[in-house]
């Protein structure tokens, strides 16, 4: 019965969460805290804050961990399956069908028409990330990191991993930044 509840909770929050990522979090909160009362608001926020500091997709981190916490290993698998499988299967069917009819000109037209939409969606995401950076560390630092990233990734052509690992190391070892943050916070 519990596994069924876990499945329903994460199926609903996954299927209704359009736009991926954080859009499903409030829905998950409603299921976990309000509908099923598996944990209180504070515990949920703690898990969310911690999950955010780790890499990887936020939805599966949240659903996997919450599933594990309330239903053990099986609960984790149930929660993950409910979050991931329905939409992956839909995605595979949709794209496979589209590709199967790729010799029809009108299907090719359809596939061409979605490219600029994807461009707009990513453009919006780009702007979101820039805005968030500006809010958390100001324009100057944001532009400096953007400038360095462009040089490292696009001009020097290094793997983005190098840039990201470098930034993570910088975050861990920069004492100066830490002081600045503390000054701002106080």
């Amino acid at each position, binding site marked *: 019965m519990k596994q069924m509840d876990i499945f329903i909770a994460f199926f609903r929050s996954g299927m209704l969460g359009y736009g991926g990522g954080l859009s499903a979090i409030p829905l998950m909160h409603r299921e976990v805290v309000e509908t099923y009362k598996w944990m209180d608001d504070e515990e949920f926020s*703690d898990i969310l804050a911690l999950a955010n*500091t*780790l890499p*990887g997709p936020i939805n*599966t981190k949240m659903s996997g961990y919450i599933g594990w916490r309330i239903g053990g290993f099986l609960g984790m698998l149930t929660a993950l399956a409910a979050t991931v499988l329905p939409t992956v299967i839909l*995605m595979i069917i949709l*794209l496979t069908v589209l590709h199967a009819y790729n010799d029809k000109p009108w299907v090719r037209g*359809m596939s061409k028409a979605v490219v600029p939409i994807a461009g707009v969606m990513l453009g919006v995401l780009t702007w979101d990330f820039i805005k968030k950076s500006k809010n958390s560390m100001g324009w100057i630092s944001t532009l400096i990191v953007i400038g360095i990233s462009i040089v490292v*990734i696009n001009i020097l052509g290094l793997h983005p991993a190098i840039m990201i690992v470098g930034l993570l190391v910088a975050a861990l070892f920069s004492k100066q930044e830490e002081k600045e943050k503390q000054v701002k916070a106080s």
Partner: protein
Amino acid sequence: MIYWQIFVANFMANFLGYGGGPASIPLLEHEVVDRYKWFTVHEFSEMVALGNALPGPIATKLAGFVGYQQGGILGAIVGLFATIAPSIILLIILLGILLKFKESPKVKNMTKLVRPAIAVLLGVMTIDFFSSSYEGIGILHTIFLGGASLLLLEKWKVSPVYVICGALVYGAIFLG
């Protein structure tokens, strides 16, 4: 071999993607388009657009499809595992330690500092998508579809489902 590559591609993209699912999109593109050459920019943008029209987390939809395309059902499972498992295992193991340090500015700085780099990756991909669109359907259709979808999605907050469906109809009629 192919399963190992599917694992590596998805693992890298998601383990480096600080900032949730969308942050992993340009990293995944780097792996599957630039490095392994499994997809063209056009095919990848199609995946992103349709993936965004469907509900649920974007990273796992892409991982599942990339895995399926390259290695069938088992490939899809490998792709999903690589995307999901490492970060959950980390979360479960580190929870105790993380709880202690969650207010630490260093931990908070990690996500913050990576954000502009992700913005650059996303920005470059945006440009890739538009230039692929320009080559495919020319400047006028690209501007029209781009402008219309920007207004619909951002200004009028229309759900991506309808915008993508609208684009599919437009494509079938005018671009066929």
